[in-house]
């Protein structure tokens, strides 16, 4: 019977190792030094601010961020623009409001409490303007893709010429990280596409990193509090466990049983 079990385990090992070779076919995602990973991970404030700039100057032409409000830009744990800066940013967008007392819709500059302006009125309009493909809303995009931030970062830098055996239609591009390798988003980034206010050189990799950091924040706006609280909770639980353990030992010492 022992032999049977060990055979079973060997079969399993072969089985699992075969599986890992199947998954090796998809290219390995690019890695970069995210500051938000790990037990004490925090967002890089400057990167978030630059990331917002990339979003608003590049991505926002097609991608909405419907769950974000302008006030989020000045909230703790995010890009932390000052409230005045956030107000200034909001006021640069004209949004539709109403109806007013005459029953008319009107436009006005956005306020902190307003949601991010959407590039299209509806999904159909977005599709019509983008060759039939809907540019996904980016509010929780990082959490909605396997591989998360690494995947988004890799995808942004993953454009290359298609292998000779693949024919692409007009408006379709080859991306080695995209599921099925075909993507309708044209190459989004190129060196010097934006001009960073803080003097950082706007290379493709830098912009990809900044926008991905920004998207990570938009998907997990409370990540910093979560990490901080989590650390305290776990330390508290460990200390309490030790105390309870000692109490338990003391109580059980009255009984001649090991626990």
């Amino acid at each position: 019977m022992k032999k049977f079990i060990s055979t079973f385990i060997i079969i399993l090992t072969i089985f699992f190792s075969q599986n890992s070779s199947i998954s090796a076919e998809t290219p390995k995602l690019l890695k970069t030094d995210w500051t938000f990973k790990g037990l004490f991970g925090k967002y890089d404030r400057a990167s978030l601010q630059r990331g917002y700039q990339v979003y608003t100057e590049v991505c926002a032409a097609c991608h909405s961020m419907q769950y974000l409000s302008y006030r989020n830009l000045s909230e703790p744990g995010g890009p932390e623009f000052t409230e005045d800066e956030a107000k200034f940013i909001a006021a640069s967008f004209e949004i539709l409001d109403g109806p007013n007392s005459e029953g008319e819709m009107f436009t006005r500059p956005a306020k902190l409490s307003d949601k991010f302006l959407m590039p299209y009125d509806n999904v159909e309009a977005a599709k019509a303007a983008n060759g039939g493909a809907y540019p996904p809303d980016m509010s929780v995009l990082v959490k909605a893709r396997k591989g998360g931030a690494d995947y988004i970062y890799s995808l942004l830098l993953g454009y290359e010429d298609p292998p000779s055996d693949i024919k692409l239609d007009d408006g379709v591009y080859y991306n080695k990280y995209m599921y099925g390798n075909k993507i309708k988003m044209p190459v989004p980034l190129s060196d010097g596409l934006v001009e960073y206010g803080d003097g950082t050189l706007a290379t493709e990799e830098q912009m990809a990193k900044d926008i991905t950091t920004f998207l990570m924040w938009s998907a997990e706006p409370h990540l910093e509090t979560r990490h901080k609280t989590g650390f305290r909770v776990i330390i508290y639980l460990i200390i309490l466990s030790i105390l309870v353990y000692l109490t338990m030992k003391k109580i059980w010492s009255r009984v001649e049983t090991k626990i």
Partner: protein
Amino acid sequence: MSDSNYTPNSKLGKWFNDRLPLLTLANHLTDYPTPKNLNYWWTFGGILTFCLITQIVTGLVLAMHYIADTKLAFASVEHIMRDVNYGWLIRYVHANGASMFFLAVYIHIFRSLFYGSYKSPREIIWIIGIIIYLLMMAAAFMGYVLPWGQMSYWGATVITNLFSAIPFIGEGITTWLWGGYSVDNPTLTRFYALHYLIPFLILGLVVLHIWALHVPGNNNPVGIEIKKPSNDTVPFHPYIVIKDAFALLLFLIVFAFFVFYTPNILGHADNYIEANPLVTPAHIVPEWYLLPFYAILRSVPDKLMGVIAMFSAILILAALPWLDTSKVRSAVFRPLYKQFYWILVIDVLVLGYVGAMPAEGLYLLVARVATAYYFLHFLIVLPVLGWTEKTNPVPLNITEPVLAGSALATRSVREDKTEINLKSLG
């Protein structure tokens, strides 16, 4: 509980207790004689009670902010995650809490399988437990639908469609479940109502589960009936309470790690995409705790037979007290059963693994073999083992092996070589 001759000390207490014997109940729970050799696998009952209460409390708060409407559900969950004070914490505790609940219940069930806790006179405890487990799966499935992500929608579509396999009335039942001709708003609202109801049904059954437990008392690692109270037992409070508390704290450390550091690892990325009836995800997979049954479902080529196999896989557990014919409870004294037990554990893990993989090629083959073995274990192996297995001698009381296993009792080592390791399952 009527066997207690407890009388409260105070006059007021006595007056109250004569009218509603809550103090007698409290006294019973405090003094409840528990075998002193219970190991840490026995602490999961308390952990499960904690999990249930956590789900109810966090769920209550979530329900205050959630909106059951196909157009608003996804956004309302994002509202909870972003704008509700500590909403992210409450939702992550609730979502990971479901996984922790299942982790604990699987350990609890497999502990019962190892030590034969389902055997006479504890069949009713076991069957109530199976009903609780079924309700847990229903509650978890419906809860997963509520955020109205892609996996919510398509998971609901796949599972509700199973009922259409029933001959003649299947289509009608499916339409009735949906409240329409596809998974839509009426489906979401009724799932929400049921998701809120089921935990309270579970709570009621948990009370019955514990009540039924307190009639014969706990089983124990040696698996013999013991005199209660006696030298072999300790009062529930403080001995078991403090031990359960310690185990719960260790469990909470694991729980907290998931909630605070990898809150989404047990979920599926596609569920952060809002439900879209026009786009089918590449792979529709249920949550990890349902995967073994999903694998059984898919391993049968015929839809109706697949559904029957899946439900039989759960219901067969209810017949376990009669399928296992062995008079000896604990696997400690059943050398052959112990081996088959571990094969079953591996079998279920394999089923879970292939349940997450596409149903094709080698995966399908493995799923079929593992499914066949699952039923073989319960229908053939267990009854036959009970008749043929030569079990090791069982001690007369638990103090004997307990002492034999401890350092101070080398004097009482017996020659019948009952090697018992009470500290572990093995």
